[in-house]
């Protein structure tokens, strides 16, 4: 067990080191990260539901300005997502990549695609089959927070994993 954890740790470090889209796709042959669902007070979430994924796992990761590199926090979220997706093997997802509005439309479409791929490739490296993951870039055209300020921009630079099949 200890060895397995060590393997997992080294894999995480390895992936973290090369960080992003340029990382070669690695099929992880280790146990999934521990996923322990918790239930908020008065919030009765059905395990394996879309809401379970959103509330207990976290459906999105955030990026720096003009970047597609996964932050340590983003990796943690994606590791939880991978654990959950292994547990519920029928689930298929689409990862939507988004940008803040500061940039031209076409470049942002490309950047949003890079961000979606960064998430997708990390999930693949954690053992989720590519066939379960689609990507879709919205560039700057679907902000989460529509204001023109730093707070809004940081919320908008995101990749959101949305369940399309296999859960309700």
């Amino acid at each position, binding site marked *: 067990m200890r060895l397995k954890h060590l393997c997992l740790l080294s894999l995480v470090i390895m992936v973290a080191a090369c960080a992003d*889209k*340029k990382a070669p796709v690695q099929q992880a042959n280790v146990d999934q990260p521990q996923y322990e669902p918790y239930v908020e007070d008065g919030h009765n979430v059905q395990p394996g539901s879309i809401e379970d994924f959103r509330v207990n796992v976290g459906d999105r990761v955030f990026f720096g300005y003009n970047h*597609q590199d996964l932050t340590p926090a983003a990796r943690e979220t994606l590791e939880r997502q991978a654990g959950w997706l292994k547990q519920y093997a029928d689930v298929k997802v*689409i990862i939507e990549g988004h940008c803040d*509005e*500061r*940039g*031209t*439309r*076409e*470049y942002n*479409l*490309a*950047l949003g*695609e*890079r961000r*979606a*791929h*960064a998430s*997708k*490739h990390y999930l693949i490296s954690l053992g989720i089959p590519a066939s379960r993951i*689609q*990507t*879709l*870039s*919205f*560039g700057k*055209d*679907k*902000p*989460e927070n*529509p*204001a*023109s300020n730093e707070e*809004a921009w940081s919320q908008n630079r995101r990749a959101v994993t949305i369940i*399309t099949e296999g859960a309700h």
Partner: protein
Amino acid sequence: MRYFKYNLVFLLFINLLIIQPTCAEEFEVHITRGKIEAFPIAIPSMFGDQHAQEITEIIKADLHRSGIFRLLDPRAFIQTPESLKTAPRFSDWRLINAKALVTGHVTPDVGGQYRISYQLFDVYLDRETDRFEKVFTLAELRKVAHTISDRIYERIIGISGFFNTRIAYVAESGHPKNRQKRLALMDQDGFNQEFLTKAETGMVVSPRFCPTRPEITYMAYRNNQARIYVMDLKTRQERPLGSFANMTFAPRYSLDGNKLIMSYAENNGDSDIYIMDLKTRQNKRLTANAAINTSPSLSPDGSKVVFNSDRGGSQQLYVMNADGSDQKRISFDGVKYATPVWSPLGDLIAFTKVFNGQYHIGVMRPDGSNERILTKGDYMVEGPEWAPNGRLLTYYRQSRRDRQGKAQVNLYTIHVSGEHEQWLRTTTDASDPSWSPLIR
């Protein structure tokens, strides 16, 4: 063949920006930062009923928007309408410094139609230089007026006009979190607006007119996929451009309409530029590196491509041969450059440039030299597109959004000299304009 006498500055301006962009460099600053010496023209109301008046106003608005005509104030006119009916008295028009005079008659014709006859006079040479007569229905009234505007522009300026044209754009409505973006179309002066796609079908971005056929290409979201589509404007039917595994975006036709150049999202998340032969449906990949390569635009002769890439670490402009060889960076200044578009005349590349946190529209020569900034955004300004005669640009502005997400998103036009910026009225918020070819 020209009939009009230009003054020196106007001649220099034409010479520098239109005919011989490589000569007289030392005058560039003076010319581009100075005023255009606008061409003074007198357009009295055409004779006839309210339709004559309507046509006169359309022509005046067209020539005004072009940025290179100065419409003389009718209150200064000396010759009375009554005597003008018989013949122009050129000395009266020279006295108020008119260089050209436009007259016309609109009379009812058979079957509820109308007949227009128009004449253009060179006031200094005392002679008629153009005339045109046409029977038209009221539904064709605006088209007839624009046709006359184009004839006046061509006769005086010596290059094609752009008045009988349309502009495709994205009509935006609803809250920004769930924005509805429809493909829309209107005349270049903002009239006859119509929507070509439905909001519920999915978002549409970056429409581009085909320079040779009534056809528009764009990227649209359909069935959880972002792909390039083509719409036939006669049938209003859209069809996907080929079958691609990943996102296709940033489409643009070649000037001869035979090819389409675009971006394709590779399996590793990067984007590369591809060119499709629309007859054989064969694709060729032109870039291959670990970077974003997008917003491609072909030179008018089809031999070169300008595009946007961040391969050097920041977003810059690059030029390559149309087979992908000899890729060279042409922009070096500023924080970032984007959306390069080759002028249909081949002389300039228009772009969006960001520096000091502000957005600008500018032009440069195809080798990256002689950059000129035409206009600056209060917040965002983006996506210049050329009029078919290469003398005007259209683009959109977006103001800073407040906490509720409210902002103004509007289309503008500007003369390539950087003067005469004009708001283009639309019924909804509007972005991503694209200019049609001249409709003859």
